[in-house]
């Protein structure tokens, strides 16, 4: 930002020039007529000068408005480039204290100061990054041969750009040193440890997070960073089960430098040219011998690649692999195989894993005791095959037994893991912080589905909010909610009819007419169940779906004030069916949506069809949860749109329920003529042509808001077990069904 400002001052200088020029021309013009006799030419000059001044002014304005954004990036290269060499040099005295070795018993509740994170309405930890310092020992030799690496710089940049970042050290919950320990090979262990201990907030490593990808060194290659680090958390690549402190450390992948260089387009999952591919170069000779034996047994299905002997080390050699003189491009060749072997080297964590995932190849991981990257949250069972090293000879048989569909799913999953968690240092860093964040605020943690479902599955899958298979008891009954405007006579008949239903717990009349008061108490029909009248503030259809506190049962019967033709048996039976399907809409009149091929859009159908995809909420049972959902969680502007159009609230409800549960509604009992002599009933209206057009429009509108067509079509309806059976009527629980 500061650089931008420098540019502004230079820019202003140019502007000043403009002004002075303009003034000069002004003077010239005042004097002009006396000197030059030809007025027309003179005018033309004035005109041109003026025009150019105004034009320049306009350009200047434009630059002011739009330039600064692009300035930043160019300025980085220009005037004030920030360089790692500007960082202060710190000399480490030999006598500086060395932290203790990492404590294996450390856990979040013993080695992590949770008070620093505090209560936080956003449930997000704050991360502080120490400013860069260059540490050298007493004779001036740096503590690390590489200094700040490109990857670590990217990682810290990503953190500082993220919402986790804070520049206020006093408010930070997690501290990330700027000392790069990604690769232990380039570190001087003792001095690095001393440097860590010198950090101003080190405090025995409390709440400090170190990122390390290549731990250990020859000859025994320990599986965790050897730098003594007190209580610091370690995000390490290549932990074994003996060094990983479960719930404290984070296992991260080893970043593959090829990720940034090579772009592999996503491939459709499916069978590929090779069945198993081994592309690693540093494989122990014992294992290579075993792989070769497998190759002999299974021939073409296996491709066993190695280093190309004729290429010198470097980028070129990293991008090629050879098999008996045949040269293959790496990592492109990985896309040609269904399974790719990721065998342990001296270290457990292998960068190959990242390449393999990127290629959408299913990793076959042979690394005993290895803690897979991000295993705390990722379900590797769905993306990889883990085989004990001992069973390497049986690898082919094991992989062959995996069903095709599973292989395809694993391929998709593997690629998704790479996209989301492996593809860049930013992805790795953000995932690590999110995992730690989830531990500190476990009640706000990301769910298994959020971590593991690829976008496609997230989109098509449903996780019903009422997922427990539960048949609620009959006893609480249901609350009938009658929406009414002013048809009092019909309303009273409906109330009297409903009051005969045994399981009615309460009757709620939603009085939607603001101009008229409901009739006096004495005029209402006398019924056994309590009756409540709710007056609304506005005449809106959504009032019928408001989660009123008065509704104390979970079952709601929404009913119009003109539905007088349903018998008490039918209503009671509807309630019994709802109990078996509490997460669905259970209603009487059924409707269907159809795809109109001619018009290329959805069409509403109310004829006698063999299929049902909606039930009208003029008479339907549903869970009160959906009231809450309709009122507060309806996607897009549907709710207001319905209120404005005074139509389609029932279609909206069907969309909502089908979308969240993925299930079809249940139509109960045979079709009836929903007509009454003194009112325009649903069917009467439905016949109206314009009404049908409107309803079709609703379906199209909702489908576009939901981005999909959630409605499910079924060909069944629910009847009592003995419906129409040759059996004495009086022995049937619900004899009065379907009569007109």
């Amino acid at each position, binding site marked *: 930002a*500061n650089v931008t*400002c*420098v540019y*502004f001052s230079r820019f202003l200088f140019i*502007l000043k020039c403009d002004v002075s020029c*303009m003034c000069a021309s*002004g003077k010239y013009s005042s004097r002009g007529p006396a000197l030059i006799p030809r007025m027309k030419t003179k005018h033309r000059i004035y005109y041109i000068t003026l025009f150019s001044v105004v034009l320049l*002014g306009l350009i200047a304005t434009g630059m*002011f408005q739009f330039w600064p954004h692009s300035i930043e990036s160019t300025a980085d290269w220009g005037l*004030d480039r*920030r*360089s790692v060499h500007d960082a202060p040099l710190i000399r480490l005295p030999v006598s500086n204290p060395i932290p203790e070795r990492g404590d294996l018993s450390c856990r979040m509740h013993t080695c992590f100061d*949770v*008070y620093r994170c505090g209560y936080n309405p956003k449930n997000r930890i704050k991360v502080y*990054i120490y400013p860069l310092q260059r540490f050298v020992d007493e004779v001036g030799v740096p503590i690390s041969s*590489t200094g*700040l690496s*490109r990857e*670590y*710089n990217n990682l*810290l*940049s990503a953190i*500082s750009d993220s919402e986790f970042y804070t520049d206020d050290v006093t408010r930070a919950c997690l501290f990330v040193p700027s000392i790069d320990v990604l*690769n232990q090979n380039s570190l001087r262990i003792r001095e690095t440890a001393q440097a860590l201990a010198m950090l101003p907030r080190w405090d025995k490593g409390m709440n400090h997070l170190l990122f390390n990808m290549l731990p250990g060194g020859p000859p025994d290659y320990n599986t965790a960073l050897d730098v003594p680090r007190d209580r610091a958390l370690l995000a390490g690549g290549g932990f074994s089960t*003996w060094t990983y402190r479960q719930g404290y450390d984070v296992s991260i992948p080893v970043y593959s430098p090829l990720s940034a260089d090579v772009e592999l387009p996503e491939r459709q999952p499916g069978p590929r040219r090779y069945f198993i591919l081994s592309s690693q170069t540093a494989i*122990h*000779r014992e294992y290579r011998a075993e792989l070769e034996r497998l190759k002999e047994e299974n021939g073409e299905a296996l491709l066993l690649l190695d280093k190309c002997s004729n290429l010198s*080390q470097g980028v070129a050699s*990293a991008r090629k692999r050879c098999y008996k003189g045949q040269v293959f491009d790496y990592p492109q060749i990985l896309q040609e195989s269904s399974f790719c072997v990721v065998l342990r080297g001296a270290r457990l964590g292998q960068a190959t894993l990242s390449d393999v995932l990127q290629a959408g190849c299913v990793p076959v991981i042979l690394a005993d005791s290895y803690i897979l990257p991000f295993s705390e949250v990722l*379900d590797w069972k769905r993306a990889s095959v*883990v*085989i004990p090293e001992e069973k390497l000879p049986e690898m082919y048989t*094991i992989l062959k037994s995996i069903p095709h*569909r599973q292989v395809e*799913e694993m391929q998709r999953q593997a690629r998704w893991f790479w996209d989301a968690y492996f593809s860049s240092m930013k992805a790795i860093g953000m995932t690590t912080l999110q995992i730690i964040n989830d531990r500190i605020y*476990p*009640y706000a943690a990301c*769910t*298994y589905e959020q971590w593991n479902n690829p976008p*496609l599955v997230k989109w098509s899958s449903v*996780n019903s909010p*009422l*997922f*427990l298979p539960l048949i609620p008891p009959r006893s609480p009954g249901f609350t009938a909610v009658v929406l009414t405007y002013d048809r009092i006579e019909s309303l009273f008949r409906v109330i009297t009819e409903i009051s005969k239903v045994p399981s009615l717990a309460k009757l709620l009349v939603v009085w939607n007419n603001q101009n008229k008061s409901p009739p006096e108490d004495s005029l209402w029909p006398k019924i056994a169940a309590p009756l409540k009248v709710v007056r609304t503030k506005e005449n809106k259809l959504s009032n019928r779906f408001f989660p009123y506190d008065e509704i*104390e049962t979970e079952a709601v019967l929404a009913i119009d004030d003109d539905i007088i033709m349903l018998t008490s048996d039918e209503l009671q039976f509807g309630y019994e*069916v709802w109990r*078996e399907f509490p997460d669905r809409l259970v209603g009487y009149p059924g409707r269907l949506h159809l795809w109109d091929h001619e018009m290329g859009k959805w069409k509403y159908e109310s004829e*006698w069809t063999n299929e049902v995809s909606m039930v009208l909420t003029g008479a339907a049972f549903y869970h009160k949860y959906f009231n*809450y959902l309709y009122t507060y969680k309806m996607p897009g502007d549907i709710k207001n749109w319905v209120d404005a159009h005074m139509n389609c609230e029932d279609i909206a409800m069907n969309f909502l329920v089908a979308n969240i549960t993925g299930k*079809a509604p249940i139509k109960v009992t*045979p079709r009836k003529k929903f007509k009454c002599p003194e009112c325009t009933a649903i069917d009467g209206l439905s016949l109206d042509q314009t009404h049908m057009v409107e309803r079709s429009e609703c379906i199209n509108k909702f489908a576009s808001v939901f981005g999909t067509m959630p409605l499910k079509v079924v*060909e*069944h309806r629910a*009847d*009592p*077990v*003995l419906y*129409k059976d040759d*059996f004495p009527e009086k022995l049937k*629980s619900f004899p009065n069904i379907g009569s007109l």
Partner: protein
Amino acid sequence: MQAKKRYLFLLSAGACLVLLFYFGGVQLPASGRNRHDRSHNGYRPDQPWPHFSDPLQQFLPWDQLDTEEYNIHISPRQKRDVNTSVYKGKRCRMDSCFDFSACKKNDFKVYVYPQQKGEKISESYQNILSTIEGSRFYTTDPGQACLFILSLDTLDRDSLSPQYVHNLKTKVQNLHLWNNGRNHLIFNLYSGTWPDYTEDLGFDIGQAMLAKASISTENFRPNFDVSIPLFSKEHPRTGGDRGYLKYNSIPPFRKYMLVFKGKRYLTGIGSDTRNALYHVHNQEDVVLLTTCKHGKDWQKHKDARCDKDNAEYDKYDYREMLHNSTFCLVPRGRRLGSFRFLEALQAACVPVMLSNGWELPFSEIINWNTAAVIGDERLLLQIPSTVRSIHQDKILALRQQTQFLWEAYFSSMEKIVLTTLEIIQDRVLQQESRSTLMWNSHPGGLFALPQYSAHLGDFPFYYATLGIKPYPKFTAVIHAVTPLVSQSQPILKLLVAVAKSPYCAQVRSHKRVCVMSSRFLPYETIVTDAVLSLDEDTVLSTTEVDFAFTVWQSFPERLVGYPARSHFWDSNKERWGYTSKWTNDYSMVLTGAAIYHRYYHFLYTNFLPASLKGMVDQLANCEDILMNFLVSAVTKLPPIKVTQKKQYKETMMGQSSRASRWADPDHFAQRQTCMNKFASWFGGMPLVHSQMRLDPVLFKDQVSILRKKYRDIERL
């Protein structure tokens, strides 16, 4: 002059415009310059990371890519051996302390040491042993076994307890199969005693695995030990009570927000949190009650708050609070775990854990974040605001998950023990193990057997979660008994009718080789998700089959059938009754004509114990009842009856052998006996009643028959 004026006016206007920019611009750079200066003048410690643009080195230079030349070092095989010798005792892992070779040949078999005479075994441990002996893992041959269970009671290792078994050390060492505890599993509920309650069992467990309650993360060996819940002596052996959640009320808040009622330890280990609870207690919706009245000499230690606390404590009833609270506080006691945890789980009261360092029960497989709030003892004072910040939708989900987990893994001792064994089995048979999804979603890991398929889409339970649908074809399996002699046999008609269905992928018939269970064998030739199971004398039309199949596609995890039966509780005889009468409800459909998922073939064959399958084979009866029990136990829902053309009346059956079977007077009595036998094995009655039947949408409606798709069903 006119023109000149005009130009002048324009000129001045332009000048003004430019001046405006000039002055407007002056301020911008001024403020900018300040910031710029600051960054130059001194080192500003609080600036964001500067995104260095130097050409930096890679952390892993290209030429170092394969520096891991370890060919010169020891071979991987030797390295493995080194691990096994180094990582012992507290650092045991499956890789170092478990002998996989014992399990290879014979799947996963468990051996229980024979009980020594005179050895005192508590009822709880006796239950654990008998559960294992009744399970499909049990073997009597130690040579076949992969896992060994002691018949010495190790549940209570509190040396002050009356259940404490003395001299365990020598007793264990004398076992000839002990092998320093390798492949042994030791169950333990209590360890250590006052005052420090260590987690030491008081004898050398060697390389044995622990299935232990109240285990701390510090002592827990990940993927080696199993953390089990603390359960009481009264915990039912099989079946167990269902969860208390009966309905999902909206809004999901109950009378209290957060409750606790329990002892307060004034001093010693684990006393801090409970001593501080009164800070959070508000007498309204956060009710945290403690009492000092426990132990003989509580008066001696009592502090200033004791009397007030005790009075408050007696005002509330524990059960009432448990059932009427949204959240239940589960603080640590002397030990990390407490009975309260399971009580809260069953009561659908979302547990709020305050037990730092407790490795939660079955933490290896259960994602507790979906069913509990994991708090931190250090942040006790934040707990009320934390639970209040949890959204209603989340509460609804948490509450339902408590019920799922309770019923899937905790409601009986059998489930706890089997879950423990299944977890170890998953580790042993790595390739055939469950994913997290299978453990954490309905119907849970005990009913989802990974040996069936590695692909989640092959199970009937995960279609919605994966966003996929079952394969839209079925395989008809006809159970044939009589040899084919004439062209008029019903089986031929049936074959024709079924084969006509557009959804039919293949028809298979198999001869009964005198065993009934063979009907439900997981034949590899069944490749479709749906199976249409038929008897040879079943009378069905193509339309009926088509309709039933479209219904099944909506309910792939259930049994969809035609003739239905019902069960009832016969209170006079105190046992379950079976009825084939026409009733207003049903709880079973006969598998002589039913569609279901092929997974149930696998489950029937591999999940059910030999005793029940043997009984079915012996009687040549009840296989359909057993199938109904199994499916309802898995789904917790009734089967689905669809409409059919002709009534499938047992008495009106034709000439076939089946008719003679139905006519047999013993037949009915047998079925009654079967039901009671099955119910006792399942530990309860899994069957659920339904009052509805599914018919085609226009069934018997007053509309032209030509409009109807399934018109044949109505014709007689």
